[in-house]
């Protein structure tokens, strides 16, 4: 890893550059919940842990509130999250917009056009407009660093939280970044101000007007703001754009004039009118929703946007060449090849639990995490996935709709991190409202899908300190649930017994299946599984659970890749002919 000294120029992920910019801006408190594509922001901020406090909060609402508290106390603070996390955090966001800030307050919202690792592709700019919060959008790693610094300054100048919006492509692209020194403004004094900081009706109704005025003023100032830039070249084509699409515009239309917006909410009306008047044909290029376009058109300005550009997925230079210039890029026809969807890893404990659910033909209300992949063939166990924590409440709703017997062949499946995120509330609801369903907590001791972040039940903080470890068993017990079990995720017999018993029980029960994620650094494989081709009857039972380390050879016998195998033994236990054995590590 390159040394990060001010004055040097290094390659950085967009997310690392956001962390760097926040550090340089003097941020003192950061809170987040992991979520692709935002996770690396916090992971990079802890590089500066001597000067910045950074934490994983249990969910985005808590993270936002932690950042708000820090801001009220007078320091620069931030929260970062993926787009759907912004939904979770929207409650405090909408109201802190009314109160405004003391220390600069920035929320980084990471959208995922193209849905690389999400459940939808919503546009955070819409949330920002509804919450009346300004939005700043960088176009590359260097701008990420610079713009987030400006975001802290503007937050204090206009007394407002600010959203820095990025997309997956910016978050996960590396580019060159110029490093500068950290300049830490003095902490602002805290002054008690009930009219500003206590949002009850009499105060809030006045603050609403303040927010409107603030946005109007900012919209006026935006016409000359350094974050917005009109680049005049040939004026036959003019493009209004922002963020990553700016790069596609520059690539596809190097001669076109461009109005590059760094502040995408509120919009600089005068600047846009002026730009529009100087170009022959005006295009508006923005991924996802026509947020800029609808406003510009509402001012009576002629422009072309979503008539020719999609609202779905990522854009590209070729796409713009095709849509604007009618140019096709010559290339071969893509080969028709089998898809390669993501799958559970070799040695994943979720596979073991799912193999039992599949055997017992039990439906699963699913949740968000690696274990969502249990919906993929050949397992196809997971029936539903909505959002974080929804598995438990969905199961509860089914029972209330259809009765106790209906959920006797259903369970809710939820990971340890997701359970602590919002599953806890849903479980509380089951207890309170006399549900009888069965909840399976797939405890692999980490937040897996996002790349192994700690959480409140792992005993470690984001800063790397040892801490209290919330015990999931006792947490469930404390809610008054009598039937709580901990079981080894690879103990197939016990799992089967418990699942049969608890799904029939007319009381809430929780089965915590425990086994470390096989990708954790602390994971020690028991050995490697090997096949005796003489004994293999080619029945395919072992490959039915979809382990990627296994495949059927041409003659039908099964082979196991020794590099990929983590020695979990699930295949061995499913073989009725004793053809697979575990070669134990010495």
């Amino acid at each position, binding site marked *: 890893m390159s040394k990060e000294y001010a004055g040097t120029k290094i*390659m950085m*992920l967009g997310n690392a550059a956001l962390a760097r910019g926040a550090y340089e801006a003097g941020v003192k408190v950061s809170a987040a919940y992991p979520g*692709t*594509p935002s*996770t*690396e922001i916090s992971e990079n901020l802890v590089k500066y842990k001597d000067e910045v406090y950074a934490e994983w909060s249990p969910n985005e609402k808590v993270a936002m509130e932690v950042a708000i508290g820090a801001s009220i106390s007078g320091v620069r603070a931030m929260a970062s999250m993926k787009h759907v996390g912004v939904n979770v955090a929207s409650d405090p966001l909408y109201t802190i917009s009314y109160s405004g800030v003391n220390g600069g307050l920035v929320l980084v919202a990471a959208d995922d056009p193209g849905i*690389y*690792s999400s459940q939808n592709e919503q546009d955070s700019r819409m949330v920002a407009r509804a919450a009346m919060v300004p939005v700043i959008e960088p176009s*590359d790693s260097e701008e990420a660093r610079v713009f987030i610094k400006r975001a802290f300054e503007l937050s204090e100048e206009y007394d407002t939280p600010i959203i820095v919006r990025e997309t997956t*492509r910016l978050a*996960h*692209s*590396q*580019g*060159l970044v110029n490093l500068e020194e950290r300049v830490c403004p003095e902490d602002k004094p805290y002054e008690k101000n009930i009219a500003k900081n206590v949002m009850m009706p009499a105060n809030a109704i006045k603050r609403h007007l303040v927010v409107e005025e603030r946005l109007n003023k900012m919209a006026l100032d935006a016409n000359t703001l350094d974050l917005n830039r009109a680049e005049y070249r040939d004026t036959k084509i003019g493009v209004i754009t922002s963020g*990553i699409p700016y*790069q*596609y515009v*520059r*690539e596809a239309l190097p001669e076109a004039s461009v109005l590059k917006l760094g502040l995408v909410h509120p919009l600089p009306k005068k600047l846009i009118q002026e730009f529009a008047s100087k170009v022959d044909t005006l295009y508006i290029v923005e991924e996802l929703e026509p947020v800029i376009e609808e406003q510009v058109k509402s001012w009576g300005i002629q422009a072309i946007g979503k008539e020719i550009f999609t609202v779905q997925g990522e854009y*590209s*230079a*070729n796409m713009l060449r095709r849509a604007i210039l009618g140019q096709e*890029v*010559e*290339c*071969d*026809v*893509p*080969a028709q*090849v*089998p*898809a*390669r*969807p*993501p*799958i*559970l*890893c070799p040695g994943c404990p979720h596979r073991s639990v799912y193999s039992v659910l599949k055997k017992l033909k039990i439906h699963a209300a699913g949740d968000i995490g*690696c274990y969502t*992949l249990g919906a*993929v*063939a*050949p397992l196809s166990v997971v029936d539903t996935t909505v959002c974080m924590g929804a598995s438990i409440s969905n199961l509860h709703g089914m029972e209330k709709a259809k009765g106790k017997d209906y959920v006797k062949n259903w369970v809710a499946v939820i990971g340890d991190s997701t359970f602590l995120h919002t599953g806890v509330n849903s479980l509380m609801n089951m207890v309170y409202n006399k549900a009888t369903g069965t909840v399976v907590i797939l405890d692999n001791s980490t937040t897996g*899908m*996002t*790349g192994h972040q700690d959480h409140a039940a792992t005993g470690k903080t984001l800063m790397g300190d040892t801490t209290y470890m919330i015990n999931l068993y006792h947490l469930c017990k404390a809610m008054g649930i009598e039937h709580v079990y901990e079981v080894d995720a690879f103990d197939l017999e016990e799992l089967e017994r418990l699942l049969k018993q608890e799904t029939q029980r007319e009381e809430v029960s929780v089965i915590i299946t425990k086994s470390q994620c096989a990708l954790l650094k602390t994971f020690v494989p028991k050995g490697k599984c090997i096949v005796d081709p003489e004994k293999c009857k080619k029945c395919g039972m072992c*490959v039915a659970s*979809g382990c*990627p380390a*296994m*495949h*059927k050879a041409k003659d039908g016998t099964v082979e196991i890749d020794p*590099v990929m195998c983590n020695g979990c033994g699930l295949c061995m236990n499913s073989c009725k002919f004793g053809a697979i054995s575990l070669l134990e590590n010495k």
Partner: protein
Amino acid sequence: METKNIMIVGVGGQGTLLASRILGGITRQAGFDVKISEVHGMAQRGGSVVTYVRYGEHVSEPIVEEGCADVLIAFERLEALRYAHFLKKDGVIIVNDQRMDPMPVAVGMAEYPENIIEDLKEKHHVVSVDAKALASQIGNPRVFNTVIIGVAAKRMDFAKEDWIKVIGETVPPKTVEINQRAFEAGYEL
């Protein structure tokens, strides 16, 4: 000079990100503007992954598009085929001659195409290598990705010593020696 476009494709978990960091390092060392675009998150769990590396005097777009790649480095045969249409007419494919069945093939819902490398050779300049076998000979099959980098490096415009230096700076300290040997093995092929 015109911007160069390189793609690294493979299966999530194979170590394509390390390869892209090495490429980023070497192009940066030569003084170019560089952009690298990666896939994190869900696809890293065994899905098809692609990394784009673009370098030149000034790089705008961070991705490589269909018909534009100068070099396609594929860690697996099927992935080479999946992305072959990204190549320019005179582009080169470096392919690791390894088969990894995607789940639809493993469960019998699709067939793994036969003769991929032969078919690719009909249209493109293809260099294939059994990187895992070479890496195993060196002593650790896991460094096969560095072997592939070695094969690709031979066909790019940077000095061998510079590659070795960048590898030394990029891989975990304990694995520098074996990675450098893996690189040599690929380079000398």
